[in-house]
């Protein structure tokens, strides 16, 4: 089990990036961390890895603590940092073999794993190319291959698919799922909320260094009732219409964007009838209505009270 116990991180300038965070990740679990920029996600992952030192609290992976046995801890870990680096002038294979050596792999094993992973990520043709000749997406794939090289027990992924096209994002996740052992742990942050919703067993939402929600994606989505309904009108809604809609008891939030009225409501059918009635009474035509069930993104927005950036 990965245990994070009462983790506090206070920087010398007084900023408290984490304020006593505790959670546990079970064996075989994929654990997602969501939150707006500056919520403390990257700080949390760096603390878990031991490259930042906690002000108080501790992290333990199957009894091994990164502050007490850093080398033993990091042998179990594969990392994709948000802003990973490469030796740009060296080839893809050289970059991977150097990191294989850092992980303590033998040359033969590194060679076999490198060839296999480059094939899986469809990068075999680029094996001898200097990394500087690769696109941003290809570099991200090399970074993922580098993290998976030594078959880590714990995968630490900070924005692992940033910069990848939708096809490559799906491919990356399918390789991650395939490569991980049934008992391995994955701790992942991403701004692609759909990706977290689709792939993670449990999700923690963070804001300002604390946990604001924790649960399975389904439980979190179920925890906020209702729907999102978008009304596309024939013109920008006048203040009188907005006031009338705001006055409806089943509307929990309202947002206006040009000629679109976005509502969060408890009962979609009831809202469509009532809002259409209000529009009709003010001589405004409703061109179309779109209804969406609440998603993890809605949970994130509601839990943090902020917009994603």
């Amino acid at each position: 089990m990965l245990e994070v116990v009462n983790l506090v991180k206070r920087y010398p300038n007084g900023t408290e990036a984490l304020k006593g965070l505790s959670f546990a990740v079970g064996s075989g679990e994929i654990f997602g961390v969501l939150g707006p920029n500056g919520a403390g996600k990257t700080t949390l992952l760096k603390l878990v890895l031991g490259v930042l030192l906690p002000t108080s609290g501790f992290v333990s992976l199957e009894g091994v603590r990164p502050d007490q046995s850093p080398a033993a801890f990091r042998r179990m870990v594969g990392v994709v940092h948000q802003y990973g680096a490469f030796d740009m002038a060296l080839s893809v294979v050289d970059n991977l073999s150097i990191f294989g050596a850092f992980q303590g792999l033998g040359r033969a094993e590194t060679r076999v794993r490198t060839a296999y992973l480059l094939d899986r990520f469809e990068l075999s043709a680029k094996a001898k190319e200097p990394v500087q000749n690769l696109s941003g997406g290809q570099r991200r794939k090399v970074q993922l291959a580098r993290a998976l090289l030594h078959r880590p027990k714990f995968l630490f992924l900070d924005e692992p698919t940033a910069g990848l096209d939708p096809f490559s994002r799906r491919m990356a996740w399918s390789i991650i799922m395939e490569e991980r052992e049934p008992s391995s742990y994955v701790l992942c942050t991403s701004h692609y909320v759909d990706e977290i919703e689709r792939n993670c067993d449990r999700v923690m939402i963070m804001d300002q260094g604390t946990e604001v929600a924790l649960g399975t994606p389904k439980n979190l989505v179920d925890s906020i009732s209702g729907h999102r309904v978008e009304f596309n009108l024939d013109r920008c809604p006048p203040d009188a219409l907005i006031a009338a809609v705001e006055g409806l008891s089943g509307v929990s939030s309202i947002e206006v964007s040009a000629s679109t009225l976005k509502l969060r409501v408890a009962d979609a059918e009831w809202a469509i009838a009532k809002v259409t009635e209000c529009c009709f009474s003010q001589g405004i035509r409703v061109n179309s209505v779109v209804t969406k069930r609440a998603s993890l993104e809605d949970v994130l927005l509601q839990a943090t009270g902020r917009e994603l950036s």
Partner: protein
Amino acid sequence: MKPNVRLAGKGIGAIMYREMRLFFGNSMTVVLSVASPVIYMALFSTSLNGLMPTMTYAGVSVPYIRFALPGLLIMSALSNVLVTSQSIFNEHLSNMLLDILSTPVQHSAYMIGKILAGASLAFIQSMLVFASGVLIFRVPVGLTRFLGICVLTIPICLALSGLYMTALGLVKNIRAFILTTNILTNVIMFGSSIFYPTASIPSALRPIALINPATYCVDVIRDFLLGRVEPKSVAIVCVLAVLLTAAALVVFRRRFAEV
């Protein structure tokens, strides 16, 4: 062997391998590192050798190029360790240091690997200077002395690497580091016996020369080249290598405890 020790050894080896790949993988770096000491040597042998055909050192009159060769060797080593120590800052800024320290490679293994790689490259370059001095500029030296100087160059390069890496750990940003190392390099070169004998150093610079590791490094090679073996000087250089390497390790661990 304990697994941790084996892993640390592998980490040091991997860091050294990476440095060598980065150095020899770039043909421009290799050409420049070979060309620059030879150019220095040519300049010294033409301009300064013309101004001062001979130099009195330890009561003996020697041709200036023979006197200057150990100094050139140290200058060449200095330029190399400077590049290696700057690379640590660059790796910190580019997040490569974070990526490396996220693997089982620990601070000490990273630093020892860097120092050994820097010292090895400085050694290779110094030997090229020395070889060009012997072959192109006809500085007389027998095989035994040549081999002795090769061996002596190892602790010298370690000491200079340790000195620059320690300086690296004491400053906070790359701009300050570049300024610090520029000043340090000038003080090391002119506040030592690289260009002139210790006895001729201006009195204002003498205290600096006394605490300047380069003074001991140059003198021990110069003595060896001129056939004088000073066990005390050799011991001082070896002690400097150990002390400065240890200082670099301590300072680096403290400076980059968090990345």
